[in-house]
């Protein structure tokens, strides 16, 4: 039983890690605590419904559609809403992301109706047996894709010139501007990547269950993941996601389903009290 629960936690945690990574990218680049990240997950699920069920695109083309639409959404949100507020108090920006979340939910319900939509893709179903452990192919695919995305993003961030510029902008905004980096473009790219990573999570969550605005609640589990891992740490967001997934499953199995919320958020509180920069984040030292 332990192995079964552990593996299912790992699979789930991979999706959380993906969404948390998107959150961390946005935060690291623009210092914005994005409360709309959960709705980006929902948007991903509904982009998938649009591509597969409404437009009936072939699956490879549907993926291009989903990624393109999600990236465009992130870029537009930054250009139209976030960029004009740069330099304003953080509270204003946070309120904006909350308002954005509520607005996106209402728009989706107006366009698609309040009922959930079933999402059928050619992604494999069925079960793989590894000894006594049963893993659904869909969970396995979700985990593998999440890891490929995370690894791909890591390589992009580390080894490409654009990735280098993004890191420079995130590390020191003013120095990047002085060096001639188009910081606004880098920030838009960060939002595009962040929303795309969330949308990929939404694609899998929508097929694991049903595409509905209730997926937002699941997407918001990325927040404790990113705080536990470290708000400014890309690896931390991934590890935080995995931890949240495993803790959720373990607590549900060995204590009770409701206890998983308690355990996750108690851990969050402990981290904030003892190591507020997270497990993998770096302490910020200021010189007076």
């Amino acid at each position, binding site marked *: *039983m332990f192995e*079964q*629960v552990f593996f*299912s936690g790992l*699979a*789930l945690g991979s*999706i959380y890690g993906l969404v948390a990574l998107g959150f961390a990218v946005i935060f690291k680049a623009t210092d914005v605590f994005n409360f709309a990240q959960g709705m980006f997950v929902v948007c991903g699920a509904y982009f998938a419904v649009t591509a597969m069920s409404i437009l009936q695109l072939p699956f490879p083309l549907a993926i291009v559609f989903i990624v393109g639409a999600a990236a465009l959404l992130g870029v537009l949100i930054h250009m139209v809403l976030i960029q004009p507020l740069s330099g304003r108090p953080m509270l204003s920006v946070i309120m904006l992301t909350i308002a954005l979340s509520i607005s996106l939910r*209402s728009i989706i*319900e107006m366009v698609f*109706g*309040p*009922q*959930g*939509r*079933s*999402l*059928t893709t050619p992604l494999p*179903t069925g*079960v793989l047996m590894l000894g006594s452990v*049963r893993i*659904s192919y869909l969970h396995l695919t979700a985990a593998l894709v999440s890891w490929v995305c995370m690894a791909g993003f890591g390589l992009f961030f580390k080894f490409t010139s654009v990735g280098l510029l993004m890191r420079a902008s995130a590390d020191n905004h003013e120095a990047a501007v002085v060096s001639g980096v188009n910081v606004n473009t880098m920030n838009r790219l960060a939002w595009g990547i962040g929303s795309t990573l969330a949308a990929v999570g939404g694609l899998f*969550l929508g097929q*694991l*269950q*049903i595409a*509905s605005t*209730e997926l937002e*609640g*699941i997407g918001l589990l990325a927040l404790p993941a990113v705080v536990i891992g470290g708000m400014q740490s890309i690896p931390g967001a991934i590890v935080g996601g995995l931890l949240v997934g495993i803790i959720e*499953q373990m607590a*549900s*199995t060995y204590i*009770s*389903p*409701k206890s*998983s*919320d308690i355990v996750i958020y108690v851990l969050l509180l402990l981290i904030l009290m003892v190591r507020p920069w997270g497990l993998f984040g770096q302490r910020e030292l200021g010189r007076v």
Partner: protein
Amino acid sequence: MTDSTHTPVRKIRAHLLLLVAALCSLGAWAQDAPQDGVYKDRIDWGLLMDMSGPTSASQGIWVNGFRDYMRKINEAGGIHGRKINVLAEDNRFNPATDKIAFEKLVSQTPVIAISGMGSSVSQVALAPTIKAGKVPIVGTYTATKALSEPVTPMVYNGFCGYKQMAQAGVGYHVDKLKLKAPKVVTLAIETAGGKEYHDYVAEAVTKFGGVATHLTVKVTAVDMTPQILEIMKLNPDFITVYGVSNTAILTMKGLAQYGLKIPTFGITYLGAPQMFQSMGGEAAANYKFISCFTPGGADQTPGNKALSQFADTIGRSEMKQDINYVAGWITAQMAAEALGRLGKNPTRARLIESLSKGFKVDTKGLAAPFSYSPTNNSGPVVFKLFGYDFAVNKFKAFGDFADYEKYTR
């Protein structure tokens, strides 16, 4: 006597005759009662439901069903020459908003009666006001003890009750599987409603000498591995599910993942076509839902045909399959028939008096016939199970309502 003497008398007699004729014809005209929502050309009927909040996915559809039935009535000329004007207030599933909306329908834009009341918390809060007030509630979306007990002429339940869902579902499976001491699992979200439903299931199972175990799951659960592993340990004869769409979808997908073919039935609210489609054919093969209403298009009874035909003409071909739509439709039928019995001069007081004497509702096959009496306001009490036929993308019934009567009557 000369003509000049007779003329004034004749004039007075003529005027008197005219006055009497005018008074008689006035009595034959329909009378307005604006304070009761009754006007020369229309009657206002109120709805209190969640149309944009967390439960709008189901309650919004119920409102559509209600409105569409009234539209059908209005297109045929209304009731005794008056159109039914549906005033739907959106409570966003918020008791405070519900109270404001209720008061609005009582006095500000008065209605002759109200239907719906989809929030159990609001029902409990408003119960004393409703029972002591002047506006009857005809066809509630959910039933609470606070509003339903003791029986009052002010309240008439209009949806499937949890107790009867449990009784019919358990009874059917015990008979079908020929069980002696059934082992049952109730898989429910962690709410008061889930606990209440499990208690009804346990009561029903105990009557057959069996035992029911309560397993809980989070509303926002993404995976059911812990619950499925527990089910494997318990090895139940069948399972019943209470919760939201995801609860049923994840349960059935989880059971299929572990190769478990345990018969499972969900409550009435867990019967949307999208849910079955999300489960997929293999996982849904062992899933049914229990309902006192028949989904639109599921059979060819006169009531179902009438609903389906009208729904198809107004672009509701998909929505008609939703039980909530059918429930709203039937509640509107109740409302329309109640108004029809009042004749040309409906008022709230006359409506309450008429309802309190008891009445029958024949939906011509959409539900089993049900009735209300001065001592019984339960509404529909006969249920049956439905599954989904993926070959034709329609619901299919397991038996007739008459086959299930023994479980709940």
